[in-house]
């Protein structure tokens, strides 16, 4: 366990002293901030068009934040590979993997430490994004249950994305290639759900249940279904495991 923390601490130190974390966070909040701004515009227009008392499902949280989180998940497909690309690739390029691999820490501890650092960075991102609901809470009433559920969904999704990005980084010592592989894998898991019309019903069911888009639609709209949670968690676990395997197999290649 202590090995995991030593690695995680080092990764965070490197992430936050290099421009990459800041550039990535800035990029995320630039796009999300703009979307937030335009969704508020949409909501304002809808309020102005209201005649009589609002219908029961007329809720700012649902109108503003559910689509916002849907969009955020798509931005994360682009963002997460950039955050994870250097995790292992950079160690390979700088030959520092030789230090880690010949130290008394297991490959599992190395991968988990790096994964943990990614999760912490992602939590920072989520914490900063809280300015959006909090600023609205000053002037209106929000559905906190729905928001909390959406945040849990986003955290789970980010966890799975990070695991996939980390795995991609173990495959190559070139950061750009690692980012490209991570991006391709994430996009693939996203578009699997689009195959519905193309194939037979049995195949279609398998493919769409493997797709992020299917599961995240529920999570983002505030429905925390065990089926979706289990899917996202096991996907994260599977790719962390693949990452460990990729490191361990290097000894034998």
């Amino acid at each position, binding site marked *: 366990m202590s090995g995991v923390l*030593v690695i995680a601490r080092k990764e965070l130190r*490197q992430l936050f002293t290099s421009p990459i974390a800041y550039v990535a966070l800035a990029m995320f909040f630039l796009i999300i901030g703009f979307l937030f701004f335009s969704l508020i515009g949409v909501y304002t227009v809808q309020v102005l068009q209201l005649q009589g008392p609002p219908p029961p499902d007329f809720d700012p949280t649902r109108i503003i934040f559910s689509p916002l989180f849907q969009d955020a998940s798509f931005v994360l497909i682009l963002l997460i590979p950039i955050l994870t690309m250097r995790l292992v690739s950079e160690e390979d390029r700088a030959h520092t993997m*030789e*230090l880690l*691999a*010949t130290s*008394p820490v297991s490959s599992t501890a190395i991968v988990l430490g790096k994964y943990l650092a990614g999760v912490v960075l992602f939590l920072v991102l989520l914490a900063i994004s809280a300015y959006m609901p909090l600023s609205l809470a000053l002037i209106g009433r929000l559905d906190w249950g729905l928001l909390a559920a959406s945040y849990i969904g986003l955290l789970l999704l980010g966890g799975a994305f990070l695991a996939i990005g980390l795995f991609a980084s173990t495959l190559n010592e070139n950061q750009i290639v690692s980012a490209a592989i991570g991006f391709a894998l994430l996009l693939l898991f996203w578009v699997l759900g689009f195959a519905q019309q193309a194939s037979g019903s049995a195949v279609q069911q398998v493919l769409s249940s493997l797709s992020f888009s299917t599961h995240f639609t529920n999570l983002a709209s505030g429905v925390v279904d065990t089926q979706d949670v289990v899917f996202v968690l096991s996907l994260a676990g599977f790719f962390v495991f693949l990452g460990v395997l990729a490191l361990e197999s290097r000894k034998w290649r």
Partner: protein
Amino acid sequence: MIQADSLSRNYGERWAIRDVSFQAREGEFLGPNGAGKTTTMRILTGFLAPTSGRASVAGFDIVEKPMEAKRRLGYLPETAPLYDDFTTREYLTFVARLKRVERRKIVDAVDRAMTLCGVDDVSDRLIRNLSRGYRQRVGLAHAIVHDPQVLILDEPTSAMDPRQIVEIRKVIKALRGSHTIILSTHILPEATAVCDRVIIINEGAIIAVDTYEQLAARLRSSEKTLVRAARTAGDLPARLGRIPGVLHVAPGADRGELIVEAELGRDVREQVARAVVEGGAGLLELRPLAMSLEDVFLKLVTHEDAAATGGEEAQA
């Protein structure tokens, strides 16, 4: 301390090392580039797994008990594994944590390693901004920060200027007493400068393990003397050839040089000098030709059979 038992490793079709066995309290790997030095060291440190055979460090098998073995091991790879965006002190502190140095001893361990390797004066500089010599010394400091029993150094002086090389060697010599050191090099004089025992490896196989003096003695089959004279023409070679014990007289590399080969263990210098002077050839230089490590090395590497016959003669 370090034991290798018929280690082999292949990369696809190609065997990087084959049946490498040795036992070392201390030693030096010597071999041309691509001979298998780095592969052997990577196996000893657990970075690579052997295709077959076993290796142990300080009594712990590197494959079966990797954590125990790695805790007792310091390894400086060919390229020092440094994080450019850390300061020297931050970096060494991280390594100390990684190597499981006790929390309250970390500061002392880092200070000690920095003093030993002479990097105290750059302790707060970013590693990115250090010169090559300092980087290599920080690399050496990282390998000893947890005071390992066994120290494995892969070409620690490569690509350094001569003064830096001398400094690094000084550090390594200072560490010799308390650590088992194995280092590799293809720079031959280094072998005699730092270590006593030499393990010569070529094309993935060990071809000799011995002290340098014994290796040189083993490979010598005759006593050679170099004679340089002002006038070598005429009957000088014939006269030298008549001296009892002389086997062969051959022209040397330069004009006016002759190489007189005599039976092993027979000193003919006095007779040679007299013969040259009496012949009026004008003696300029006379010296025994000792085998340099380069000769030993080349002889071993280019003619493995020469090593075999040399060994037989030494036993006889």
